[in-house]
Structures are given as C-alpha cells and as structure tokens.
C-alpha cells in the first residue's frame, strides 16, 4: 500500500478517528517489515499502549458527555448557545408575502397595471408565466392592520399570529437562488440545491448530539391535508453524515413511527436479549471492517428499542387538557393535521428533542390565490400562534427557537387572469418573508425591507446561507467550523458562504 492511500483518510472527522487508529496499527506492522516478529512484539507490548499516542496533527479529544444517543463532536458548541431546541415550521410551496406579512399599500392604486420593466430587471420567470403577454400587478385581496407594541403589519388572514407579533422577529428580506420547488426546498433544508447534502437537523444532531436518551435528536412531522408539491425524505436526510443523524419521521395516524410496534403474537419480552446478541454480532463485524455505519446501526437498533416505550408515551395526547386543544384549534384533535403536529412538536420539545422539522404543504397558489391562501392561513394561523403562546407560558420560548417560512415568495404580478377577487401568483425567489421567535432573536422586531412591489430587496438582504449561519450561531455553532470530510473535501451546511445576521440577535 502506498502512503498516499493512507493520507486520504487523515482527517479531523471525529468518526474516522477509530478507523485511523486501526490503520496506524496496520502501518506500523507494514513499515517495520519485521513480519511476525513485529506482530509478536506488538502483542507483547499491548496494542492499546502502542496506539495510545494520537496520530500527529490530530487533536486530543476534549471531555465528552457519555450519554446514549448521538454524542456530538468534540470542540462543540464553539461558544455559549442561546437556543437549546429548534422547531422549524416549514411552509412548503412558497407562501405569498403579499397576503401574509409584507404590507404593500401602494399596489392598491396600481391594480392591473403592467409591472414596470425597471422593477423586474433581469429576473428570470418560470416557464409558467414567462409566456404571459402581460404581467399585471395584483394587490393583496386582504386587508392589513398594525398590531402589538411593535406595530407590525399583519394581514387579516392571520389574526392569531397577529396577537404574538411582539414576540416575533420578522425578516422581510429573505432571498434564494432557486425558482422551483424541489431545488428551492432542498436548498433551504440542506444548503445546496442538489440532493445529497445533510439537512439542517442532521448537522445539528451530528455537531451537538442528543439531549435525551429515549427519542431521536431530530424528528420530522409532515402534516396531512396539505396537498400540492410533494416532500421527500432526503429533505430530512443525513446525506453523507452517519445515518443515526437523519430525521425520524413521525407519521399521522395511530402508528406514528412505522414498524415500531411488536409484530402480532409476539410480546417482546426477549427483545432486549435479542438486541444484545445482535449488538455482539455487529461488533464483530465492526472489528473486522471498522465501518462507522455499523456503529450507527447498533445505535439505531437501541434507539428503536427505547422508542417502543417512549413514542407511544409522547404521542398519546390524552393527558392534554381541554383548554390546550382549544388553544391549538379543533383540528388539533385530529392526528396528523398541522394543528395536531404543532401540539406534538411542543410535546417532543418538552422531552428534550433538539430539532423538530414540521412541514405544511399547500402554499403553491398559481391560480385562485385568494381562496387558497385563506384556506392555508385558516389551517395554520391558530396552531402556529398557539404553539408560540404555549411555549411562552411554559417558559420554553426562553431556550427554544421557532422558525416560520417557505422556500421562496410569490410574484407581485398575477399569473393568469387578474380580477378584483381572483388572481394567481408565480414563484418569486428575490424576496420573501420569514420569521423567527424565541431564544436569542429580538422580539417585536422587523429586519430588512422590500420595494413597493415586494419584488426587490431595498435594505438588509438575508440569503438562505445567512439564515443557516444565524441558526447555527444561535445553537452555539460557528457555521464555518462545523465541517465533515467527504469524497476528498470538507463540507459545511453553508458551503463557502453565509454571514450571521447579527442585527436580529438579542
């Protein structure tokens, strides 16, 4: 074997440390060229002693918290975190900023007028509206009002969230590079538009490890009744990170995690014994090949075993009082709805789950937007606000970060025919609104501005990478320093970009 072959594996990646140590032994034996003599010497002196020195250039590992579940990597968090948990309410499809949070009063007088080319600039359009002969301006069909001490503008479709504006930090100047759903969502969830990168939650799990022993670090909830664009498991996938960091999806219905229940006619009393034996077998395999995925598999089996009790416990909502269900709305009694998932998210966060990724589909209103958006808001406004209130009154908003937002915004011009009470809007990546609330972000604050058409950003743009950098910062991670070496290079969630938006930090 040539030396070059070994060099490739030299890395700072925590998971390869063990593999590297094995290779050190191999190198030692090869290089001494003493064959059996060296082997005998090696065993006489004890392998542990010989390998006790960490390879040059590698840093000794710091104190590690020996808890079961993923452990996080040494050296993290880089600094004191503000947030301990994250709940990301992903609004898939691209919610229109015009009918929700970005108030554009001047558009009312411009109803039906052509969007000035100077505003549009060189922005590409999707194939859906590129062939339109006109781009008529469509003002919001819904009225806006100011709320709270922060006097934030919120549309009449969001009466419940409007009550919470003093706890919310709006970012009106988000922008992305992608104009279609799949690449845009993939970009938002993994930091790259092409599939294959680890999702935000996976990075968190990999970097920070688990805070609880009985539930996964990263859980995904996909709401039913959404319709529209599909979602795919790679959005909460681990990419090239070890498998135990992938998001575990909790489904709607009576079986939240598939295959967790014991099969029929099996009481499960010797399950623990079986898993112990399986672990021994897996360890033999691991000794032979040193593949970190085997360790991941062992961890997964053990987690699944503990989840046999912890999941039914956390998903059984019968201990929630009436007034809590009322707060989240009557749909919260119907498992799998957005409302029920918001309530579930709170319960998971209470149990120490670090990252909950919740998806609500159905925000993609190319046609009949007024009706569609109204419906979506009706489904999500009350539960979203209820989640904020519930976290707040329990004191959990103190160390929980809540995020609301979609993958892009929508156009000021109508896609298809514009009438006073009906229009559609196409995808618009150049500006849209997101909000965060809770740990570490300024409450009752609005950051960034868009022009009168909400077509371009006029102040303080925030790129998707910046959002990721800020999110990681709140969790105590320097986004430039959480890396994973894969296929010969180091990867980050923020690739080679991203700036922490310091102005929104409290």
């Amino acid at each position, binding site marked *: 074997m040539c030396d070059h072959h070994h060099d490739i594996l030299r890395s700072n990646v925590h998971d390869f440390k063990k593999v590297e140590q094995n290779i050190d032994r191999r190198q030692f034996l090869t290089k001494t060229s003493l064959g059996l003599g060296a082997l005998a010497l090696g065993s006489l002196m004890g392998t542990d002693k010989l390998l006790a020195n960490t390879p040059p250039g590698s*840093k000794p590992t710091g104190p590690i*918290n020996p808890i079961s579940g993923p452990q996080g990597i040494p050296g993290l968090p880089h*600094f004191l*975190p503000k947030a301990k948990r994250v709940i990301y309410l992903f609004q898939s499809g691209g919610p229109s900023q015009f009918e929700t949070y970005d108030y554009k009063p001047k558009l009312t007088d411009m109803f039906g007028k052509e969007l000035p080319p100077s505003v549009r600039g060189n922005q590409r359009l999707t194939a859906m509206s590129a062939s339109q002969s006109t781009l008529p301006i469509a003002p919001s069909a819904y009225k806006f009002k100011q709320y709270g001490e922060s006097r934030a503008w919120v549309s009449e479709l969001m009466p419940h969230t409007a009550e919470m504006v003093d706890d919310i930090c709006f970012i009106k100047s988000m922008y992305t590079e992608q104009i279609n759903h799949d690449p845009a969502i993939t970009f938002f969830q993994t930091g790259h538009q092409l599939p294959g990168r680890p999702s935000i939650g996976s990075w968190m799990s990999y970097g920070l490890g688990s805070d609880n022993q009985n539930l996964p670090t990263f859980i995904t909830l996909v709401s039913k009744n959404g319709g529209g664009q599909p979602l795919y498991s790679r959005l909460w996938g681990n990419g090239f990170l070890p498998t135990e960091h992938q998001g575990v999806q909790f489904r709607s219905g009576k079986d939240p995690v598939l295959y967790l229940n014991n099969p029929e006619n099996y009481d499960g009393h010797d399950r623990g014994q079986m898993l112990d034996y399986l672990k021994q077998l897996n360890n033999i395999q691991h000794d032979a090949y040193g593949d970190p995925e085997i360790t991941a598999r062992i961890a997964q089996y053990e987690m699944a075993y503990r989840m046999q009790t912890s999941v039914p416990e956390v998903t059984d909502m019968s201990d929630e009082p009436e007034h809590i269900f009322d707060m989240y709305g009557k749909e919260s009694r119907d498992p799998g709805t957005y409302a029920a998932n918001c309530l579930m998210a709170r319960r998971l966060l209470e149990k120490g789950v670090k990252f909950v990724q919740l998806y609500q589909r159905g925000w993609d209103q190319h046609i009949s937007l007024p009706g569609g958006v109204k419906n979506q808001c009706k489904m999500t406004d009350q539960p979203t606000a209820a989640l904020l209130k519930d976290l707040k009154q*329990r004191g959990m908003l103190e160390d929980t970060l809540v995020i609301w937002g979609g993958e892009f915004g929508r156009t000021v011009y109508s896609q298809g025919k514009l009438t006073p009470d009906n229009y559609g809007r196409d995808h618009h990546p150049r500006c849209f609104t997101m909000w965060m609330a809770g740990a570490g972000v300024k409450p009752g604050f609005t950051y960034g501005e868009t022009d009168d058409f909400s077509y371009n950003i006029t102040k303080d743009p925030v790129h998707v990478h910046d959002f990721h950098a800020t999110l990681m910062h709140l969790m105590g991670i320097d986004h430039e320093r959480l890396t994973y070496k894969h296929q010969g290079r180091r990867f980050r969630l923020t690739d080679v970009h991203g700036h922490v938006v310091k102005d929104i930090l409290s």
Partner: protein
Amino acid sequence: MEESNIILFLGRFHPLLVHLPIGFLLFAAVIEITERFKITKGLKNAIPFSLLLGTLSAVAASILGLMLATSGDYNHEALDNHKWAGIATTFIALFAYLLSLDLSIFKAIKQKLYLVLVTIMVVGLSVTGHMGGNLTHGEDYLTHYMPFKKVKDDPLKRPEVTDIAQAEYFADVVHPIIKAKCFSCHNASKMKGQLSFESIETYVKGGKHGNTIVPGDADASEIMVRVNLDESNKLFMPPKGKTPLTEEEKGILQSWINQAKADYEIKVVDTKPGDETLALISGYLKLDGHASGDMVHFDEVSQEQILAIQNEGFTIRELAAGSYAYDIVLPSGKGSKGNIKEKLEVLSKIQDNILWLSLENSGISDEELKLISNFKNVQLLNIPKNDISDNGIKVLSTLKALKSVNLYNTNVDYEGVSALLALPELKKIYVWKTGLDQKEIALLEEKYAELKIISGI
C-alpha cells in the same frame, strides 16, 4: 522562477558525494584489520589505492561542502565544526595515503604513526559524518526513536491545549514560541548574552541589558526591539541562519507584554483579549478560534464527577466546549420527594459550573431550594411543576447571575416573586398557574420596567 545558482547547484551534490570518501577510507581501514588478523590474504596492495580514492573524493566532497555552505541555511556554529572536522579528516587521509606508499622519506616515522593515523581518520570520518547528518536532519534525528531514551524534562512544558478557554497565556502560548525560536541559544547551558529562557525566574531576570521584557511596554522591551529590527541588522534576533519569528508570533508576544502585562500565570481569556488577538492565539495553538464575548470558563470538572451526576439521572451538557459550564436537566418525573435531595447533593459538587438548570416536576420543595441558592452562576432556572412556595423562592435572591426563572405551575405568589425582583440580571419570570393574578403582575411590571412577568396567554 528563482534564478539559477551554479555554486549552490553543485553544492547540493555534497550530501551525495560524501559517501564516497566514507566508503573508500573505511574500506582501507577494514582491509588493514583483516590483513593483520589474517582473515584475508593478498588484499594489502589495495590499501594505498583505496586511500588515494578516499582522499581525492574527500577533497571533492569538501569543495562541494564549502559551496553548499554559501547558502547560509545552516547553524553557523555547527557548520563550522563540521567544516573543520571534514578538512582535518581529508588531510589525515592524505597523510595516511602517503605513509601507506612505503616512501623512503617516511620510513623513520611510519611504523609508529601509520596505525594511529588510520584510527584517527576513522574517528574523524564518523564525527564529521555525524555532524553533517545533524546539520541536514536536525540534532535529534538520530536519537529521536531511540528506545529507553531519557526524556529531558522542561519544567515549563504543559500538556497540549485543547481549548482556548483553558489556555495559559505564558506557558501555553508565549513560552512555546520562545522555545521554538530563541531557546537554542538562550538556555541554561548556552546563555548567549547572559539570557536564558529556562524558567520564569530567568525570564524575569532578563539578559545582560536587564530590560528583556518590560511588562506593559513592548516598545521598551529588548526582546521586541530585537525581533522587530531589519533582518540585515547585526542585532536582529534570531541571528542570521535561524528562522525569524512570524508576524503572528510577534503579535502574540507584543500583546502578552502589553495587554497581559507579561503576566506568567494568567489565562488567555482572563486578559479580555480582542477578536484579533484571540484569532492570533487560536491560530497559533491550531485551535479553531472562539467568538469572543461568549466565552466563559470555570474550574475543571472531572469525568468521574460527570458520570456521578449522570448516574443520578441528570442530563449534563457542556454549554461551550472546554468551558466547563454546564446545562443540567433532570428529565421531568425522574426525581421525587424521596430522592431529589440526594441527587442535588451530588450536583452541588459542581455547583459553580452550572449555568442552566432544569428541574421540572422533580419533587423539589422549599427545603431543596436552599441547596440551589448556592448555585451562584445559574442564569436560567427551570423549576416548574414543583411543590414550592414563597418561603422557598425567597432564598433564591442570592442567585445574582439569574436571567430567567420559570416558576410555572408552582405555589409561589406575589410575595415570593417580589423577593426576586431586585436581582440585577433578571429579565423574565414565568408565573403561569401560580398564585399571581394579572393585577399583581401589572403592579410588579410597573415597578420594574426591565422585567417581563409572563403568565398564561
């Protein structure tokens, strides 16, 4: 492209050519022995020829060596020794060759001198060769992997720093720089300019000018003056041929002298370093730098203590790597009236290290709050769903670092909460499902404008 240099080009053949005289001359010496002890027969005639080839190649090697020396890349002193040893060996070889020829003019002295000369020649070869090897590969090259080597203790040596929060400014940062760049001439045995960097005492004492390091004034410190001179200046340190200090290293020394007042005990973080200094130091230590401002560090907590705490059912998480500041959670329901006191007593062993503490539904009562009142660095305190009352809460007024306290679903009331209001850092109190009503909350919030009291919504 660098310009070509024929002298250096040829000079670099020196390490290659030196092996010829070594081989030839040793070969002659070996035959001399084997012939005398009758191990071989008839090789005696080859000795003069071998010595001649050895001498000629030694002359060539010496000339190439002198060419290589013009590069100035080598330690002057060691180079000098090697040079003269090489030249001497060459002359001895020449003389030995002449004697071996059985020339009549040497007849009188040959018997006595010849063997002595050959012996000296072999010794000279070995010594010269070794010195040459040291020059190329470094002084400890040969002995680096020597078994049973006695490791020389450096009294100032410290274990490798893994986290900047724990780094000592002098011992972990400054001394290693000096050690790498200055120590070879300024140590207890060499002491050039009467300066030694062997111990803190000799650091303080300084060299013959005395003002080597002037705390708080880098410009007046001889060490900084010297390293900052122009490289062509005779007084520039380290002298010609040695590796100068990098800009980063100079920056670190300067800030140690100025900002840290050349303190030998202080930790880096305690000097409140700016972002720039911090980046320099973490870069030097090959640590990933830390965002300043968010840094804390407390006394070390052992792995055994952590395990003991975990065994009590607590989840313990270090808030920032190397800070020994912890977030401690007792999962809801894990504690009970019967065992919570015991658990907290284990926890209190690291009471100053706890920044975030969560004891939801843990069975604590007013009694246990007395223990918690000693956790003086706690910033976030979560004690909801517990049977605690005003009397218990009052003792928490010792927690000066407290920023947020969660009392949701407890029996506390107006009086207890009032006792906490004067805490300097306190920003939020969560009082849903306690004795406080909206009127009382409004009253308290009016008094303390900075404070938010959050109830049910």
